[in-house]
């Protein structure tokens, strides 16, 4: 009974994580700008490991494997937003302007807090 429930929850988490990953991949290909691509890639890079590794942890139960997977999840949750932030900051420092709503690149003084 309880194993069936855990199996169903784990399968739902794995499939949802896979769906989020594919959505993020489509966003990385189709968005027009470095920053929008970074938004698609960075956000789904945080939620997809959370769901997929969480589903695998539920699948394995109390085991050494669960501890290693939680360690992977911890590292990914710390490092992926850091890498995304570093990429956006480097792109801003290199002078790449974000595209605005009407499709033009914004002109003028660059933002000062980069």
């Amino acid at each position, binding site marked *: 009974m309880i194993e069936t429930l855990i*199996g169903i929850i*784990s*399968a739902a988490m*794995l*499939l949802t*994580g*896979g*769906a989020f*990953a*594919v959505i*993020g*991949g*489509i966003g*990385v*290909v189709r968005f027009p700008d*470095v920053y929008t*691509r*970074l938004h698609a*890639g*960075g956000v789904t*890079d945080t939620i*997809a*490991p959370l769901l*997929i*590794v969480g589903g*695998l942890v539920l*699948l*394995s139960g109390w085991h050494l*494997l669960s501890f*290693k*997977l939680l*360690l*992977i999840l911890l*590292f*990914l949750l710390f*490092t*992926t937003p*850091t*890498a*995304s932030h*570093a*990429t956006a900051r*480097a*792109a801003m*420092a*290199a002078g*790449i302007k974000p595209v605005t709503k009407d499709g033009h690149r914004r002109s003028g003084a660059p933002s000062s807090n980069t």
Partner: protein
Amino acid sequence: MASVLLATILAIFTTMALALWRAIRGPSVFDTIVGVNVFGTKTVLLIALIAYFSGNNDLVDVALVYALINFLAVIAVLKLVRQRDLAASREPADD
């Protein structure tokens, strides 16, 4: 459960193909870095999923090491692009 794992592995493969497309096509070097970053994270997930799919539990250690290497690689490439020198300790002069 094996079919669920297989479906998730195929979804991860699709995402890796899309990220590789962006990394190859990227107009600027930062698009390439975004694609490589997404590709590396999905590689970690793929290795963990394959460890469960094939029953070979040692592969989880490989995924753990790859997660660390991926982050260090992205930061090192960003520093190399920005400062053109991995040993530099300050911002380069604007030219």
